[in-house]
């Protein structure tokens, strides 16, 4: 090795070192996991740090994007890659803006500027995606879906799609874009890339929806503008689509899921066909939306060469990310926490919780905050189909800064007022009063927005019910 150290390397080393020091300082102060500030410091010292570190990864980087499921999918991918013996660099805490990604890399890199891994899995926010792709030059880009989400932060869907398309155009022919072909918008985004393309999607007609949910953005044909039709519709506007006017249709699937068996709030099993092989995969996460995440993770990890047996083993052991679906025993009550952050995700959580009987049978607390990370605008609650809860008998409690808006939403969904329990907006009080409503030994569901979930986890952590998420 050369003894001369380039100026570029000095800057990189300084940048890594100061990020590490910042993270250690934050942790000493007891201010949480320090998932963002170290990245900010590192970026100031060496803006090119991320690109320099990823360029040194022998097996390259996988960038995961999409409105819903990116945290779960990237965790699945990272677990599978680890199980295959690779050392994985991953922004596992779900801090997915550019500086969160930089923080994660700084934490794992050596002070000498070695990335400290063989391969990277980078979850990225929709808005940060173009910048992350530009810096990282990934080997694989995985696109999960594109739904309407927190318009006050992200802007309109058309705008994001346009930026993604421009970003993908910069990828060379060595890169691969793995995309959800059931999403007509993503199919359009991936349409003209010069990178390799791998299309994944679902053939699970047993789970087809009767009609397009209110939350779905009416999908129009990217070639001729006509409203699309579906042979089968699975989640929001995802499905086996076609254009009745010009004949455009879902691309032929390279990786296809089928025979999806959903086991309540626990797990799922599905068959995945790929390259003439057909294998059955069991996963420790529930719901049809997680079947999509599994399909995406299998497509990506098989593409980079992980064996089918290793993927199967890792998925059986997989458990979901903090708060996304989590089961906690607290004061002898069995609580299931499920993060809700946008209409499509909320609809899928409701679908999962009412699967089986078609009704909600468990007391449920909905905790809605309107801080920046939740989205300041709570209008989106009106796009969720709470009407599906109208027939059950279980109580629906509300809390959080916008708990009163949520209670109002439930009333207008036709839920009888005797079932609506508007608890105080203060989440600690709301949680305590909700738990009182559940008989000992019984179940309760808690559906929080992002910062409400952090609050609830902190309360439960302080009371000894769960471990801190950044230690997972």
């Amino acid at each position, binding site marked *: 090795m050369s003894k001369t150290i380039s100026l570029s390397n000095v800057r990189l080393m300084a940048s890594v070192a100061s990020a590490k020091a910042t993270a250690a300082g934050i942790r000493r102060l007891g201010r949480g996991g320090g998932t963002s500030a170290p990245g900010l410091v590192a970026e100031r010292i060496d803006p090119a740090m991320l690109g320099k570190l990823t360029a040194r990864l022998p097996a390259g980087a996988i960038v995961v994007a999409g409105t819903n499921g990116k945290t779960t999918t990237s965790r699945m991918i990272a677990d599978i890659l680890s199980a295959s013996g690779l050392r994985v660099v991953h922004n596992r805490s779900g801090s997915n803006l550019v500086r969160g990604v930089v923080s994660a890399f700084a934490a794992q890199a050596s002070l000498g500027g070695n990335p400290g891994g063989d391969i990277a899995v980078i979850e990225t926010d929709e808005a940060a995606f173009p910048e992350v792709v530009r810096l990282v030059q990934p080997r694989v880009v995985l696109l999960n879906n594109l739904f309407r989400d927190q318009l006050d932060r992200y802007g309109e869907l058309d705008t994001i799609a346009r930026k993604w398309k421009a970003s993908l155009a910069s990828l060379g022919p060595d890169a691969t874009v793995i995309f959800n072909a059931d999403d007509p918008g993503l199919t359009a985004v991936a349409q003209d890339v010069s990178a390799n393309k791998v299309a994944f999607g679902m053939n699970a007609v047993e789970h087809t929806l009767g009609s397009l949910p209110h939350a779905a953005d009416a999908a129009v044909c990217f070639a001729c503008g006509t409203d699309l039709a579906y042979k089968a519709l699975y989640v929001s506007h995802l499905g086996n689509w076609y254009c009745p006017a010009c004949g455009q249709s879902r691309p032929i699937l390279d990786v296809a899921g089928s025979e999806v068996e959903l086991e309540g709030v626990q797990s799922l099993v599905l068959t995945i066909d790929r390259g003439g092989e057909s294998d059955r995969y069991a996963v420790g996460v529930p719901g049809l939306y997680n079947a999509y995440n599994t399909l995406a993770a299998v497509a990506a990890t098989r593409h980079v060469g992980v064996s089918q047996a290793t993927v199967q083993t890792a998925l059986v052991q997989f458990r979901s990310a903090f708060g996304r679906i989590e089961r906690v025993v607290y004061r002898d009550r069995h609580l299931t926490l499920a993060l809700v952050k946008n209409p499509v995700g909320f609809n899928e959580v409701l679908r999962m919780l009412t699967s089986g009987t078609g009704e909600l049978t468990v007391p449920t607390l909905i905790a809605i905050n309107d801080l920046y990370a939740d989205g300041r605008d709570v209008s989106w609650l009106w796009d969720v189909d709470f009407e599906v809860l109208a027939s059950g008998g279980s109580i629906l409690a509300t809390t959080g800064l*916008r*708990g*009163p*808006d949520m209670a*109002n939403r439930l009333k207008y969904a036709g839920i009888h*007022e005797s079932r609506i329990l508007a608890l105080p907006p203060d989440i600690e009080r709301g949680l305590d009063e909700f738990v009182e409503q559940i008989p000992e030994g019984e179940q309760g569901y808690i559906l929080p927005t992002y910062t409400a979930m952090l609050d609830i986890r902190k309360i439960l952590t302080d009371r000894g019910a769960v471990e801190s998420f950044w230690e997972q």
Partner: protein
Amino acid sequence: MTTNRTIVIAWLYGTKMNIYGDRGNVLALAQRARWRGIGADVREIGLGEPIPVDTDIFFFGGGQDQAQIAVSKDLAGAKGEAIRTAVEDGAALLSVCGGYQLLGHEYRPHDAEPLAGIGLFDVDSQAGPERFIGNVVIDSDWGPLVGFENHSGLTFLGAGARPMGKVRVGRGNNGRDGTEGVVYKYAIGCYLHGSLLPKNPVLTDWLLEAALRRRYGDDTLAPLASGIEEAAHASAVSRAFATR
């Protein structure tokens, strides 16, 4: 009191102009009618579909740029004329954001052809340099109203146009003159999402009364318990002041 009253709600372009949860407004109108034993017949009116002649209340929400171009073209001619005629005759109407802009004279984007409106409201809109995003509280004839704005379009009222209210929190029509929205007869245009009507039930009932008066000559509305709505209103107002 007339029994067996029913109203027809025309939801303009419900599948194309439906971002920001504006369908809550349609739910609020229909539910507050039904809870009083008044039938509510909600009809979605898509591109190329005519305006029902018996429409009592129109709702017109906001959409993405592409959708607004198609809608602007669709409104030209007979369809726009039908909406104007109904409103002149006393029909009720609520429009929000993109719908509001397309009911004015025109909308001028930064770098594209102007979109023609139907000129129901004496207002003009144009693309602005920044996006106004946040909670809004206005003082109005209905008392304080609360919603959430998210628009880069700026709307300016013509000389005779009457604003819906004065901005207390937020930016409103254009961020300059302190006005928000417009009212003409029983038609309202505004930038208030949230959804607006569910947590401002006084405004919902005003629209219902106008519709009932025109169709039946009888605008009696039985009182409804509105504790949940009032709590939502109060908390939204306090969040607006806390996040201003």
